[in-house]
């Protein structure tokens, strides 16, 4: 088991930006009638999602989220020592999007800036990486972005993905705090043999874009895809999601002697309410301590945990320290769990763009 403990780092603030356009699953043109849509809503808990308009990227949403967070915290752009960008829907193949954002956000030229191309586990992995860099005490303020525009790389005529995924950008402000009494604890996991459970077959170096990869085919009744589209093999993901996340959380609880009665918030990757509820029950956390936002935003991959915190927990996080455990799981297949305390967190009001 790979585990990590980070001291002297706190969450100072969080923000989230979603596109203004909303797609309601009940009225999607991919269904024959509303009963088909209701079946999906009933089994996933996802009623609608936000979708970027043509020409808008994850970095555009990110600029809005970060600018608002810096303003609300009273931080100047030059105060930021680390800027980490968790995202797979990058603006260009090269350069890394974080470099472009350094300029757009007016961050310092000596700011430590990097991309982290993680999927659904990305916010937890990002917290571990950024937190580790900060715990030494020389880099004192960081912005961790988790952002994705899932609707841009999934086929709108793929009934297996369109109702489930949405777009969002989130920003988490972290601060070095030598007086911090609570550490952050992490557990990690990966199973690369399942790489093709959630993947885009064409568009990378192994399978470059070809004319054939741009041709849309009906691979099953009502399921249209191109080679460059992101594919989700639902049964493989289901098998993974009911196995590894509960196991990872149980390892976290056991390794760090967590008393689950003291857990205030269980923050799960917002993939599917049915699966998340099974995970919640497996580790015996009451429903009132397990917030969801997937009904409104869908699965926004790496942004789903911080979006849940901003949209559903802002008042709770603003008060005294709350004991939190979180688990991100998906693309990779990769997963990561963490324990942390969060209090006095400034959550900005939700932003639409």
């Amino acid at each position, binding site marked *: 088991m790979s585990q990590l403990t980070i001291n002297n780092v706190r969450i100072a603030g969080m923000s989230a930006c979603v596109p203004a356009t909303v797609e309601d699953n009940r009225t999607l043109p991919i269904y024959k009638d509303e009963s088909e849509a209701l079946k*999906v809503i*009933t*089994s996933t808990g996802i009623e609608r999602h936000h979708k970027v308009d043509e020409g808008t990227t994850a970095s555009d949403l990110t600029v809005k989220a970060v600018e608002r967070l810096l303003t609300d915290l009273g931080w100047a752009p030059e105060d930021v020592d680390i800027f980490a960008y968790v995202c797979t829907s990058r603006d260009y193949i090269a350069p890394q999007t974080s470099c472009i954002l350094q300029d757009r956000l007016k961050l310092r030229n000596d700011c430590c800036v990097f991309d982290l191309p993680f999927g659904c586990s990305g916010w937890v992995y990002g917290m571990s990486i950024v937190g580790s860099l900060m715990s030494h005490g020389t880099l004192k303020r960081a912005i961790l972005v988790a952002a994705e525009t899932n609707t841009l790389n999934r086929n709108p005529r793929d009934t297996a993905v369109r109702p489930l995924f949405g777009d969002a950008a989130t920003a988490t402000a972290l601060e070095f705090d030598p007086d911090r009494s609570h550490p952050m604890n992490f557990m990690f996991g990966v199973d690369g043999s399942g790489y093709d459970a959630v993947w885009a077959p064409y568009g990378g170096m192994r399978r470059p874009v070809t004319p054939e990869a741009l041709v849309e085919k009906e691979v099953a009744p*009502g399921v249209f895809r191109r080679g460059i589209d992101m594919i989700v093999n639902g049964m493989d993901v289901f098998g993974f999601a009911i196995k590894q996340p509960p196991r990872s959380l149980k390892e976290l609880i056991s390794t760090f002697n967590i008393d689950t009665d003291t857990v205030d918030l269980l923050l799960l990757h917002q993939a*599917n309410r*049915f699966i998340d509820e099974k*995970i919640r*029950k497996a580790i015996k956390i009451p429903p009132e301590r397990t917030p969801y936002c997937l009904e409104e935003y869908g699965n926004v991959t790496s942004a789903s945990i911080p979006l849940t915190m901003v949209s559903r927990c802002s008042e709770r996080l603003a008060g005294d320290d709350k004991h939190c455990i979180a688990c991100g799981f998906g693309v990779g297949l990769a997963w990561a769990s963490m324990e942390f305390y969060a209090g006095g967190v400034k959550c900005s009001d939700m932003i639409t763009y």
Partner: protein
Amino acid sequence: MEKLVKEIIARVLNVDLEVITDTLSSGDIPQWDSVGNLAVISTIEQELNIEFPLEVLFDLTSVQSIIDEVIKLIHD
């Protein structure tokens, strides 16, 4: 119970009851894809007021396996 489970599966997948044979499995018909499978399991839980344990969920991919697990849960 077997008939009731089959009726629920047929209704959720929106197919005739005759289609739901003992040997039918997820993937055999287009309606029984991953989303359809989740809909079948969650509807059976709701309507029969049972809770499938996490460790058996992945095996609930055929009519017979679902019937067997429902009977086991109800008898327990």
